[in-house]
């Protein structure tokens, strides 16, 4: 990471970001870079369906707009169609972006509640954690809850409970409540990762999917403080 910052990279791509998160003990659904289609097919055979295909690049921070995700791939036939489609989309990108973009296959996390967890450095107060409703609704719902780090496990739980999306997580309209502890652990883990690094300017996971079985960081984004 220091190397990347030293080279003037402004951000890490998903694969690199996810590597970081994984190292910090955060659950990432298994993913692999697809050099050739066989890699994808093997992945699906070994891990099982459903899977998603994603375009991966440090320059593509908002995938949905460029059609950079293909979800709900449930069988081989669909996988082949998706592969074809995604290669086409990659080729359709602008030259510089295209060259920096690879294709990635990942296990799909089935339904859960999408939240966003991020850490940003404030010039006055240092690292600040942000939590709220995530996924495609994030910009619309504006469920933005901040906490100036450091943050304890209890404080993380408190932050979840006072958020709008927290209402869904604590059992809404008869639905069972989710275990907030795993999510709180993820938040504290991310906070620790951001605070321990001098080169991370911003790190964000959107979405984190909260399921009854566990908490998954599906898409990580890291912006570095360049040192060049």
């Amino acid at each position, binding site marked *: 990471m220091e190397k990347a910052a030293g080279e003037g990279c402004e951000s890490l791509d998903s694969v690199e970001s996810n590597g970081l998160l994984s190292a910090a003990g955060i659950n990432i659904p298994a993913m692999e870079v697809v050099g050739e289609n066989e890699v994808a097919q093997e992945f699906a055979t070994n891990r099982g369906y459903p899977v998603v295909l994603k375009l991966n690049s440090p320059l593509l921070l908002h995938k949905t707009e460029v059609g950079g995700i293909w979800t709900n791939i449930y069988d081989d036939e669909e996988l082949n169609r998706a592969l074809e489609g995604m290669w086409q989309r990659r080729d359709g990108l602008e030259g510089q972006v295209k060259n920096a973009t690879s294709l990635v296959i990942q296990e799909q996390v089935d339904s859960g509640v999408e939240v966003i967890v991020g850490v940003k450095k*404030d010039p006055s*107060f240092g690292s600040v954690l942000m939590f709220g409703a995530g996924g495609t609704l994030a910009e619309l719902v504006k469920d933005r809850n*901040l906490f*100036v780090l450091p943050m304890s496990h209890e404080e993380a739980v408190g932050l979840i409970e006072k958020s709008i999306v927290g209402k869904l997580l604590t059992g809404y309209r008869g639905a069972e409540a989710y275990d907030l502890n795993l999510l709180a652990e993820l938040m504290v883990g991310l906070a620790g990762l951001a605070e321990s690094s001098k080169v991370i300017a911003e790190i964000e996971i959107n979405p984190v999917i909260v399921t009854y079985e566990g908490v998954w960081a599906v898409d990580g984004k890291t912006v570095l403080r360049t040192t060049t």
Partner: protein
Amino acid sequence: MAGNLSKLFSPKSVAVVGASREANKIGGIVVKNILDSGYKGLVYPVNPKAEKIEELKCYPDYSSLPKVPDLAVVAIPAQFVIEALEQVGEKGTKNVVVFSAGFKEIGDEGEELERQLVEVARKYEINLLGPNCLGFVNNLTPVNVTFGQVVSNPGNLRFVSQSGAIASSIFDWFEATGLGFSEFVTLGNKSVISENEVLEYWLGQKRDLVEEQFGKGLSGVWPVGLYLESIVDGKKFMELVAEIVKLDPVFVLKPGKSEAAAKAMQSHTGALAGEDAVFDQALAQVGAIRCESLEDMFELSRAFAWEVAPKGPRVVVVSNAGGPAVISADAVGEVGLELAPIDDGTLTQLREHLPRAASVKNPVDVLGDALAQRYADAIEIVMKEERVDALVVILTPQVMTQIEETAELIAKASAKYPDKPIMCSFMGGTHVAAGEEILNKARIPSFRFPERAIKAVAAMWKWRETSNKEQVILQGSSGPSAIYKQKNK
């Protein structure tokens, strides 16, 4: 960064560089202010062009001073300040207030000048307040080291303002309401001393609220009010505030929610604004209260200075008009307080003392024809209730209303129940003014609108809740004094 600031804020001797004989020059105003404030220490005007200023011997330069002053005030044009500071440093003075403008706030040239100024200050280990500041007032010493119009009483408030102009308004308002403070400090460009150093100084202060000096009716705490346009070191700020709120409430006004405000502030002190939402959260986390406006800050000053924070969220409202009573009931719900439940015993007593038509549930409506005695009866009955934590009294001036008498009786109730705050809303202008004056003298806050009174109670409860402390009131021989013990967690 800065050393111990006691000598700065309580100097035994003050030198004024740029002292003037002219009453309208800054160098003249400050000398007069120092003398008029009853300062008992030594004053040394420094000005090569004068032999005497205000009957004091004037010295041609700093090095010729017979002693090393504790504090130097610099009131000369910016381009001469650095040289003057060198002389001050050479002499050995460690505390300096620089009034002069023309530094970072004017742009690049000034920024370079200020950088040099800071270098000199660091070289001599000088605690420097300013530049571009109004100075400070310490009512306990006493000494007024400002060039502003300050009339002030000693009291338990402590104030820091990044703006000198706002300070003038605050002083004026304090005078009108009889609010007193111990220190009022303006920061100017915060080149060396920032809000953090002042907070740290206050943390280290141990003070008794002695009735002889301060009079009766104060809340027993030393509230801290801040007007800031920027934060120098957020983490340190949070640390210091978190410590202070354990004993004393802290409330902050910091504009900057709008882009326009942020731009205006940048040119004012050349300081950068961080994200406002982060500042908001930081304050909430450490238990400080954020003021939404100057009005808020004025009202909270009075509430915290004069009334003890409620031990719980249960409010009782006593009003001589139904409309405002209902408005208050709404407001109570909105700010996280509760309407105190009135038990049957109390209800019975109220029914016995109030006319049949009066509403005895909370809010208690004593009706429009209530004279002072009916108010007093109702107040006495509800204040005795164990489950009442705070009282709000609303008065509208009807023809028969005994405004001043009612105010007197409220003052008596306040003295009788010192651990329950009373806020008043005497609604009106001219007719209620005399009543408000009595309340001010008795140190009971009065608000133009009942919702404001309720908001103040809410802020006080919030502080109490967050700081989680126990207040123990002891009856001393010279009147009640309050000591605070922190609850064992």
